[in-house]
């Protein structure tokens, strides 16, 4: 497993930047043989992670900083989305489908991330922020040779 490419991006917590994050990660992922379905899944997972940072981390303030790091290894893609927002008080509750009281939101962000990625790790601390790591493995036949 060796690092093939790395992109790090810092942007404001503006809804318009969700698409930027998706496109950035998809561009990195497209360097290797992820199929179209994999790329769609990666885009949805990134969209959910960044949207969560904007909606919940920064409570829709548009001046928060979100850091996105995409590392492409020979056998997997690792994505880290970090915010310095309010953090998640009850992570167990936040991970449940339909969590949240807003009838306009589905509470499915983490469900989509878990469904579409091979690994989802969440670190959060109230008052300090949240860091979400998403990993998508390349299928054996598609792995990149060094």
């Amino acid at each position: 497993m060796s690092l093939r490419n790395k992109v790090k991006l810092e942007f404001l917590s503006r809804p318009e930047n969700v698409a930027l994050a998706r496109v950035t990660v998809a561009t990195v992922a497209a360097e290797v043989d992820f199929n179209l379905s994999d790329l769609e899944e990666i885009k949805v997972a990134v969209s959910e992670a960044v949207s969560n940072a904007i909606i919940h981390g920064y409570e829709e303030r548009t001046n928060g900083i979100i850091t996105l790091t995409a590392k492409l290894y020979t056998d997997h893609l690792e994505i880290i989305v970090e915010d310095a927002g309010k953090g998640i008080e009850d992570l167990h509750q936040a991970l449940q489908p339909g969590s949240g009281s807003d009838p306009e939101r589905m509470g499915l962000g983490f469900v989509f991330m878990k469904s579409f990625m091979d690994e989802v790790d969440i670190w959060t601390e109230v008052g300090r922020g949240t860091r979400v790591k998403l990993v998508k493995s390349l299928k054996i036949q598609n792995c990149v040779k060094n």
Partner: protein
Amino acid sequence: MGSLEIKKQGDILIVSIYGEFDLSAADYCRRDIDQKMREHGAKHILFDLDGVTFIDSSGLGVILGRYRKVTEQGGKVAISNVAPKILRILELAGLSRLISIYQDTSSALRQLA
């Protein structure tokens, strides 16, 4: 960023969404649809997703929120023209169990009328 076209046919509001239906599109879609519902006094909504190239839970939330409002008032909501990759997201979210999905707009309009 996505865009929106809204037409009225009888008491049905036909909402055609284009492009990426994510957080950046959710707010104005929600606002515009609710405003047109009030202006036209429409009872039902048909979401035509033919032009949607991407959807996430923010976009789905707009559809779900309208579904809740419309059904509370005795109306119906339907979805038409869904690409397979979008359908997969609707199914995973459980939206396809709540809202009828039709292959084309005319079939959906017949059911809503």
